[in-house]
């Protein structure tokens, strides 16, 4: 897929009650209007459907939100469109992976990401969940990123984190062949 000079990618965010068929219907409408889809990430967060996707419309379509009006109504979605300078072929390879788990409490993300950012971590992917039972909720987070000041700096930062969390840091060594 080639990109035109002024890029043209929009970032579309949809949020709403989860049910089967949302992605199929949204992509059907977009494809029907001549849109191209780029990278996308869909997730259920707290039981709610969420998706963010790169969309590039043909010049004939100026109103992406308007195009999605019927889908929005049918699925009770919130629709948000950002004009951003997104583009394809911009993947960055992560070189470190961090997993965090412990009894859920307020402040875990702030403490962990704060310490890691100071030690040079650029986060590329982050996924976190609260799981376990209602009485004993546990917090689980996986992060992939680039250790801009080396992995040792991150290891030192991790060693100073509160002891109630288990934090595992492992290098990602890509086999490219």
């Amino acid at each position, binding site marked *: 897929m080639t990109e035109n000079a002024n890029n043209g990618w929009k970032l579309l965010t949809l949020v709403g009650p989860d049910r089967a068929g949302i992605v199929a219907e949204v992509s059907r409408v977009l494809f029907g209007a001549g849109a191209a889809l780029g990278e996308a990430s869909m997730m259920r967060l707290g039981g709610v459907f969420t998706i963010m996707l790169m969309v590039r419309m043909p010049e004939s379509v100026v109103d992406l939100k308007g195009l999605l009006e019927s889908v929005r109504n049918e699925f009770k979605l919130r629709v948000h469109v950002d004009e951003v300078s997104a583009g394809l*072929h911009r*993947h960055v*390879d*992560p*070189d470190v*992976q961090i*997993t965090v788990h412990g009894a859920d409490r307020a402040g875990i993300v702030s403490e962990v990401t704060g310490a890691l950012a100071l030690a040079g971590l650029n986060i590329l*992917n982050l*996924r976190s969940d609260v799981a376990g039972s209602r009485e004993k909720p546990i917090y689980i987070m*996986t992060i*992939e990123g680039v250790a801009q000041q080396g992995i040792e700096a991150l290891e030192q930062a991790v060693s100073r984190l509160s002891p109630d969390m288990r934090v*595992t840091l*492992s*290098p*990602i*060594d*890509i*086999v*490219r*062949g």
Partner: protein
Amino acid sequence: MAVRDIVLYPDDRLKTVCDPVETFDAELRDFVRDLLETCETGPGAVGIAAPQVGLLKRVCIVDATKARRPVPNHGRRVLVNPEITAWEGFAVGREGCLSIPDYTGNVIRAEKIRLKAFDLEGKPLEFEMEGYEARIAQHELDHLDGVLFLDRLVSRSADLFRRKVR
């Protein structure tokens, strides 16, 4: 000597089961010289297989000396008609491919393998490989069977289990 063009996905040559090498001659040696040079110039490459430059023969290079951090290895190895004869354990790890730019993904591979092959003169070789080097070998041998790491992708959440399973 020449750097050859990399065959990029999608291409039927990357889906083809390659033929064994029958004769260990000057033509093979010339080809391997090119393959080595192509591997050297591939960004971040730690291995390459013949079909990635369009030759559908069972030849590949495994070079764990190029790992970013030092790992146990058997040096830069040219493997002709390689064959894995034993597998042990498994681990999730990240792979990319010269034929598939701008993408990496998680793949489950055996942690240790025993591998038989021939060198450029037709002399039999046998190695026990582990970890990173074993992963390279499995990635390259897959190429000789027309299999790409894309065919073996596992979910990113499998990251949680990338440590060795004991």
